[in-house]
């Protein structure tokens, strides 16, 4: 993937993420889930509960956030970091974020890290199913 394509995709995802958060803050989390996997199988997907986790973080409930879904911390970090990084990269015409993403992708592609990440995600998923988020 080329730099501009990735940046466009990241910008759209960040806007979508913030829009979704704003919608949830406005109308409450009871307004329903968008998870296709949950609708199809009735089971929560690995990242179900992440919105409620980020909303808990916004309200300062760090333990509740961890209980909803630990991935919420990752999402909060990405949502805070990526827009700033993206903006400075575009303004100064650099591609440090692009290089960082490629570097991370190469690390993740290695068998060892991929296996560990897979274990973590699966464990989190099983916990999600157990909690019935």
């Amino acid at each position: 993937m080329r730099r501009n394509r990735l940046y466009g995709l990241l910008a759209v995802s960040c806007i979508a993420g913030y829009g979704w958060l704003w919608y949830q803050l406005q109308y409450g989390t009871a307004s329903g889930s968008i998870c296709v996997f949950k609708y199809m199988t009735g089971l929560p997907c690995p990242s179900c509960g992440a919105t409620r986790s980020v909303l808990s973080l916004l309200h300062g409930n760090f333990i509740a956030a961890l209980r909803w879904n630990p991935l919420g911390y990752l999402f909060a970090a990405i949502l805070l970091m990526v827009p700033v990084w993206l903006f400075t990269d575009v303004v100064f015409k650099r591609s440090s974020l692009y290089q960082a993403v490629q570097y991370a992708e190469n690390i993740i592609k290695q068998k060892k890290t991929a296996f560990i990440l897979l274990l973590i995600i699966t464990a989190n998923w099983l916990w999600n199913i157990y909690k019935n988020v």
Partner: protein
Amino acid sequence: MEAQKVDMFVMTNSKFFESNQIYNIRERLIETDDSKWAILSATQFKDPTTILIVSLLAGSLGIDRFMIGDTGIGIAKLLTCGGFGIGAIIDWFMIMGATRAKNQAKLEQVLI
């Protein structure tokens, strides 16, 4: 390479590439040295139809993107319920083209 070999390759592998690229691929292969034939005929390409089936069934977990080697997008889809549900649906239409593009890149790598 001999035209006969190239035609055989194009015939058996045309479904892996964009149809507008087939002519280009044929021309490039004819110019290519014969020593590439062994590695070329041993190269495995991803079938777009198979990936589409995977995308329909497990697209919201990003498995389709992992299979064609787009690890970054795969993780993004896995961690966001398939890109907020919309990304999975968009990928039902994009994934076949993406697979063919990946196959094209793989072919380029072999030919260089």
